[in-house]
């Protein structure tokens, strides 16, 4: 039996699951927008602007979900600053929840700046202060720099949630080093899927959408491969999948969330909806499969 079975569950459930999903999706969407910011053509701008908007909203919602999930939400800032020694910061490079808190804050900052630039580009900012900020970062070298750094933070936010789970002592999470890789790939595929669904409303061209759809197809193949490796790496504790969560992983994540969208490649909108469903169920299964294992039952041989 793995030594992880003697640990306690942290009750990371219905605020953390959507956070992992939305944070990953936002990070993936920003990363793709940043790629197009640097290497795209003018007709890719609607996708870029959509990506920045998705990232900014996603980062803000992620921060709110994380805060609400705390036992003492008003102390959320204790993650960032030493409560008794302001303004000294708290930062542990070896603790994903510590550097992740900083990453989500900085990702939020970059994505909001980029989103303001995108709104200024469309002439949709009325507030003079926001318009000034948006204009400063719009269509200039600064926008590219922000996109580059924000894009890295985006992928960081998508990945660190999986690394955070690996850096515990819980069954499944700490029994495999592949969750970070799986989550960043899922973040990329769900980010692309979100852009496929939302960017047409901002005037995205068929060419841009085709690139997104092609990327999503490839990301799903990578995700499937990593998922197989992840499950194989858990072979010593394979009994954990003999449960509802194992069935959901097989049917919901692999079947509906990866294989079906791959087969529906010719219908990107339908495929994208299924990718989003699969990405959400991936977080549901990986978190709840471990959360459901109660250590005292293991200790009593039940």
């Amino acid at each position: 039996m793995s030594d992880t079975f003697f640990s306690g569950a942290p009750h990371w459930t219905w605020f953390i699951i959507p956070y992992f999903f939305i944070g990953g999706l936002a990070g993936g969407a920003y990363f793709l927008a940043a790629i197009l910011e640097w290497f795209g053509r003018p007709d890719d701008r609607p996708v870029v602007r959509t990506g920045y908007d998705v990232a900014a909203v996603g980062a803000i919602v992620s921060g709110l979900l994380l805060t609400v999930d705390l036992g003492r939400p008003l102390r959320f800032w204790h993650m960032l600053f030493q409560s008794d020694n302001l303004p000294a910061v708290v930062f542990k490079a070896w603790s994903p929840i510590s550097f992740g808190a900083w990453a989500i804050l900085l990702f939020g900052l970059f994505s909001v700046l980029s989103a303001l630039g995108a709104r200024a580009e469309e002439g949709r900012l009325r507030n003079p202060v926001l318009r000034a900020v948006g204009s400063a970062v719009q269509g200039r070298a600064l926008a590219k720099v922000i996109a580059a750094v924000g894009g890295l933070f985006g992928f960081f936010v998508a990945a660190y949630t999986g690394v955070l789970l690996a850096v515990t002592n819980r069954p499944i999470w700490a029994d495999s080093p592949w969750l970070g890789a799986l989550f960043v790939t899922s973040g990329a595929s769900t980010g692309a899927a979100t852009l496929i669904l939302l960017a047409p409303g901002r005037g995205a061209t068929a060419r841009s959408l085709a690139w997104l759809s092609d990327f999503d197809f490839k990301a799903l193949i990578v995700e499937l491969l990593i998922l197989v490796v992840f499950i194989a790496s858990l072979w010593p504790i394979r009994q954990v999948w003999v449960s509802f969560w194992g069935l959901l992983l097989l049917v919901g994540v692999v079947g509906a969330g990866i294989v079906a969208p791959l087969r529906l490649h010719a219908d990107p909108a339908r495929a994208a909806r299924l990718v989003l469903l699969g990405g959400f169920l991936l977080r549901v299964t990986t978190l709840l499969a471990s959360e459901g294992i109660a250590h005292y039952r293991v200790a009593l041989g039940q």
Partner: protein
Amino acid sequence: MVTITRKHAAAASEAMGFFTDTTVCIGCKACEVACKNWNQLPATHGGVSEMSGDSYDNTRKLDGTHWRHVKFIEQFDGPYNGRWLMMSDVCKHCVQAGCLEVCPTGAIIRTQFDTVVIQSDVCNGCRACIAACPFGVIDMNPVAGTAQKCTLCHDRLEVGLEPACAKACPTDSIQFGPIDELRERAQKRLTQLHAMGEKRAQLYGDDPNGPLGGLNSFYLLVDEPEKYGLPRNPQLPSRNLKKAGTFSAASAAVLGLLALVGLRKKRMDEQASAN
């Protein structure tokens, strides 16, 4: 029974801890009661009794409102053939503590007594420490909204008193004192038990070169650690950081490459069709 002196408390150069000899535990739960009482821990379910239904042990596990828990391990093969193993479980105050390692707020600290304490006024209830502890010791205190566990009665230690549980233990199953002294005492007891024919007797967590640099709350057991709900080889959560981080970065790089290659291919296809 050991009472530390004010000299111990003031000097604080010595690591203090518990040696729990499970062979003399009678399951009276006096330690649980003393702990609850001294630390003013709230009742669960509003004080309504809740039976486990499958054991005489109704506490079941350590959590944010039960910092001591006497485990009843029932090894029965038929109604008249078997034995009870009793073990008063508590935070291990690991020399290398997983909870302290991951805590993002700095709420978890190592004290002058080499114990590990959660400062409830700093903790924000993120619960990372719960998942990081290899022993399942920490949990939320629903009244405080923070993660809590045994402090090794830090407030009592500071004024030269021994922890409430050790003070209350009627059989000296829970022994408190400087770790070096406790290790010597544990070795003597182990030798005694082996000489008496109890060959299954073993120490758990006493080795400073063992897992987690040794435990400042260690045990004498008469069965395998797993039977007591203890991991054989507890580890720090950071053991996975490097590998998980590398795999994530590699996957991100592959995805970035796929995005760029796709963009380039699209351009080349367009150029080809334009020509």
